[in-house]
């Protein structure tokens, strides 16, 4: 895919980042039962509703979660988001690495990143 984004921080508003979003463990059931999505999200994030993070910052995972809630989530948002992050029981992998090792919500998204959301809530 021809992506010519350069550094995130210098991007003008209106530009987008292409990402691959995957679901596992049943989390896909909240997103139309489709496990793999190619999305294009704004490269510059909006402020969080609580104001904990400012607008005009490069898009990070916190913004991606907000964007998914507004644009992709089909049902029962309480099973995916809690406040400005994912609810406990949703595991996030950034390029196959636990988001706890990547700064969680503060991780700044890069073009072609693969973000995986896995539910651990779908029982025994």
């Amino acid at each position, binding site marked *: 895919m021809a992506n010519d984004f350069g550094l995130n921080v210098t991007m003008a508003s209106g530009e987008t980042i292409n990402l691959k979003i995957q679901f596992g463990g049943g989390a896909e059931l909240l997103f139309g039962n489709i496990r793999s999505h190619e999305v294009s999200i704004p490269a510059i994030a909006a402020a969080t509703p609580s104001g904990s993070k400012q607008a005009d910052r490069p898009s990070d995972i916190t913004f991606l979660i907000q964007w998914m809630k507004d644009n992709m989530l089909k049902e029962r948002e309480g099973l995916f988001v809690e406040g400005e992050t994912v609810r406990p*029981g949703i595991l996030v992998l950034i390029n196959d690495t636990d988001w706890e*090792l990547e700064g969680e919500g503060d991780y700044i998204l890069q073009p072609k990143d693969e973000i995986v959301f*896995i*539910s651990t*809530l*779908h*029982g*025994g």
Partner: protein
Amino acid sequence: MASCEIPVGGEERMQKRRKGLGKTCIKCKRDAGALVLRGLVYCRPCTEALVVQRFRKVIDDHIPPNSASSSILAIAYSGGLGSTLLLELVANILGSSSTRSRKHRWDHIDVIYVDQSAIEDLSGYQGPSSAEVQRIVTSYPDFRLTQVPLEACFDEGSDVQPSRLLRSHIQSIPTRTGMVDSINLLTRRLLERTAKSLGATHLILGRNMSSLSIALLSNICSGRGASISDETVASWNGLLSFNPLRDLGSKECASYVYWKNLKVISRVNSLEDWSGTSASISHLTREFITGLERDYPSTVSTITKTCAKVSPRGDRPSQCSLCYRPMKSATDEDSQQHAVAILASSPRDAPGTLCYACNVLFTSSNSKSLFSGGLEVPMPIWSSRPADLE
């Protein structure tokens, strides 16, 4: 006097989720870390090895390896995370045809799926379709699938359809907590009975450390504390049921399932968005455990390990005729008489003896009016035949 409050500075001493972790795997000390498990960093191959190793250890603890006689293994499958992983591990680790790794010999491996669709509207749980279940299980060529409806707990010989008996049994339970508890115990009993009828010697359940902790805590809250050890390992009539994933957290289970590209087909209960008074104890416990697991990841294993050490005092010579857990006849005497008095309105299904928790199912305070109206509560096959020791 002892206080329940956290002492000054106590919170800092509790092992909280650590930030700024090292990025190299703690085990192989070579590869980049992929997952943080209870404060420790593991790479993907080491995580996968850990899952296999802990699964195998629990299996070997309960089934003597290299035993001469062959046997039948039953796997309880719900379409959820744990049982999806269980199918994969049994197929690839236990059922492996490589003689080197094959310590156990099985005549058959039966997968049992309990279909709860008859009470979908009451439970709020819309399970996967029969075709979906079939597609997943038949993808493992060595497994035989048995699908059994939950209403099979009730007598087919009667003039009322079993599904209506099941529904009125569930509907006669006044609280949502009791309803969830009852569906769980009917499902478990049906799994055991089906496994036994298939000739199985072992029944394995897909509860991992997290879901087992949820079951243990909510059972204690529901008054099932006396039989808590049976929740982890239970033996009934020559059938041993246990949880081979009990030493694995939900995080490593979920990652393994994702990495192996397995599909979890069970949905989350639609009534479990409920909050406050209308939520069930089991739902509130799940919220508590998943939160605890995120903020204090080492504490969840403490629950299962502590419960494993708990054993009831004295003998438990009798058995509850509904849940079939052992119980202490002397201390439960009062509640038995109470139960018999209440359920005597249903002479056909006159129960034997009920344990404290099964008693509470039907006799919570707001159910009094329900019973005084002389309503019949249909009971499952096994409890209406007290003489039948099965």
